[in-house]
C-alpha cells in the first residue's frame, strides 16, 4: 500500500465508483486513488485487461478515468476537487463534444 509520510487532516472527499475517498483539496487525483488502495483505474478496449498508473507524468494514458461525466481524463494530471465524481474507465470512451 502507498503510505503518506506525514499524515495530515484531509479536507476534501470525492466519489470513486460509489465509494467515498478522503483527500486533500487540490492534490493529485491519481495519488489520492493510489493511497486509497485503488490499483486498476481502467480496463483496456481490446482485451478488457486491468490497468493502473504507470508513468505519473501524462505520457502513458494508463490512468484514464471519467471525471464528472467527462471521459478520458488523465488522473495523474488532474487535481482533486471536493465532491467530484470519478469513475473507472471501461474500454474506450464515447466520442463527446
Amino acid at each position, binding site marked *: 500500500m*502507498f*503510505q503518506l509520510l506525514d499524515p495530515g487532516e484531509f479536507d476534501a472527499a470525492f466519489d470513486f465508483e460509489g465509494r467515498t475517498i478522503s483527500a486533500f483539496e487540490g*492534490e493529485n487525483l491519481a495519488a489520492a486513488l493510489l*493511497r486509497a488502495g485503488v490499483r486498476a483505474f481502467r480496463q483496456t478496449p481490446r482485451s478488457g*485487461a*486491468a490497468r493502473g*498508473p*504507470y*508513468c505519473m507524468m501524462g*505520457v502513458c494514458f494508463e490512468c484514464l478515468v471519467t471525471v464528472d461525466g467527462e471521459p478520458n481524463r488523465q488522473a495523474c494530471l488532474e487535481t482533486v476537487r471536493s465532491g467530484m465524481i470519478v469513475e473507472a474507465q471501461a474500454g474506450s470512451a464515447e466520442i463527446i463534444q
Partner: protein
Amino acid sequence: MNASFDVAIIGAGPAGMAAAIEARKHGLSCVVFDEAARPGGQIYRDVAQRPAQDRLSILGPDYYAGLELVEAFQRCGAEHRPQTLVWCVSEGEIYWRSREQSGLTLARRIIAAAGAMERPFPVRGWTLPGVMTAGALQILLKSASLVEDDMIFIGGGPLLYLVAAQYCRSGFRPRLILETTPRRNLIPALAHLPRALLAPHYLIKGLGMLRELRAAGVPVVRGVEEIEIEGDDAARGVRWRVGERWRREDAERVALHHGLAPNVNLAMALRCEHFWDNRQRCWRPRLDGWGRSSQSWLWIAGDEAGIAGAISARLSGVLTAIDVAHDLGMIGEDERNAMSAPVRSALAQERAVRPFLEALYRPAECFVAPEADDIILCRCEEVTRGEIAQAVSEGAMGPNQVKGFLRCGMGPCQGRLCGHTITEVMSSLSGRSQEDVGYFRQRMPIKPVTVGQIAGASVLVGANAR
C-alpha cells in the same frame, strides 16, 4: 484569453523556465504553457509546495536548487498557463486546452521544452497494475508524500538509484534491486572516464548514492538477463534469470527504469528533422548550435533536444532565448555571441560526464528489443512483439506500415510508450539500422482532444485572431 506574444514556450521545466526568464530580460513578451499543475518540470516538480518543503532531507539539495529557479520564473513577468496542454503547433500558432477552455495563442517564435520521459521497458507483465516507473514513484514522493513499502526496483541508471536512495532516506527500504545493466558495459565506459572527471561532482554523487544503498542494506542482484512480472489482474510476483538460473519472489509493487528518452511527439509531428543517436539510444531533433530546429521558427531546449540533465536543460534554455532575442532584433550578433560564451562553456563542462554515463548504463539489447513473442509492446492497443514480427515477415517495411496493419502507436498515448521499441524491434528483426527503420509519422493533435475543444479553439480563431 487570446493574445499575441513575442515568444511562446512549451514546458515549465528547467529549460522552459530559464528560457522565459532570459527572454524577459531582453524585453520579449512571453507565455509558458504546461500541462502540469505547477511549474518545475520533472526534476523540480512541486518544489514550491508544502509537502516538498518538508522533505528536504529525503529529496536532497539538487531538488531544492530548483526552488530559486521557480521563484525567479514566477517573478519574471512571463505569463504562465498551468494545466494547459498544447495539442497542436504551427508557425506562429499554438493550440491549447485547459480544463475550462480551449484556444489559440499567437506567437512570433516558439521554444519547445517538453522534456523527456522514461524509456519504454517492455517485459512480460509490465502492463499489470502495481508496476510503475521509478520516476512515477518519485513524482508521488515529491508531490504527494506517498511511498510504497516493500518495493522491487528493476533496471539501471542514475534515476533508479536516486529514487531507491530517496526511499531509504524516507525509511522505506526497497526489498530488492534487480540490475539489468550488462556488466560488460564497464569496459567501453572506462574510455570516457577521463573526460567525465571534468565534472567530478556527478561521479562523487553517484558513488555516494551507491554507498548509501549499501549502508541501508538493500540487496542488489547484478547481471539480470531476463525479467518477467507475474499476475493476471495485478502484479503478484517477479521472476528473473542470471546466467542459467531463474529465481522468483512474490511482489505486488515493482518499479522499472532504464534511462530516459526525449519527448519527440511534437517535433516529429512538426516534421522537424530527427536523427538516431546511438549513444543515447533514442531519436533526437537535428538542431543548430543555438537550438534552432529545421523549422526556422522553432527552437528546442532541454531534454527534448537530447538527454543531458537539469543543469544543461537550464543552460540550453538560456542559450535558445538569447538566440531568439537576436532573431527578433533585440540584440546584435556580437552581443549575442558575447552573452552566450559563458553559457556555452558551462554547458560543455556539464555535458562532459554524459558519454561515460551513457556507455555505463546503456540498456541491453534484449530489454529494448525483446525477443519473446508474447510481450506487449504497444500498451494502448495491446500489440505484441509476435504480431510485429509477423507483420515484418509479411513485408512491413517500417513503423508506419505496422501502424496501419495493427493500430500500434494509434492509441491515446500516440506511440509515446511504444515508438522507440518499435524502431528497435524492427531494426533487430530486419538487420537494418534504427535510422533506416525510422519512426512513426506523428500527426496533430499530439494528445487526444474532444471535437468541442477543436471547435472551441477555431471559434476563438475566427472571433479574435488577426
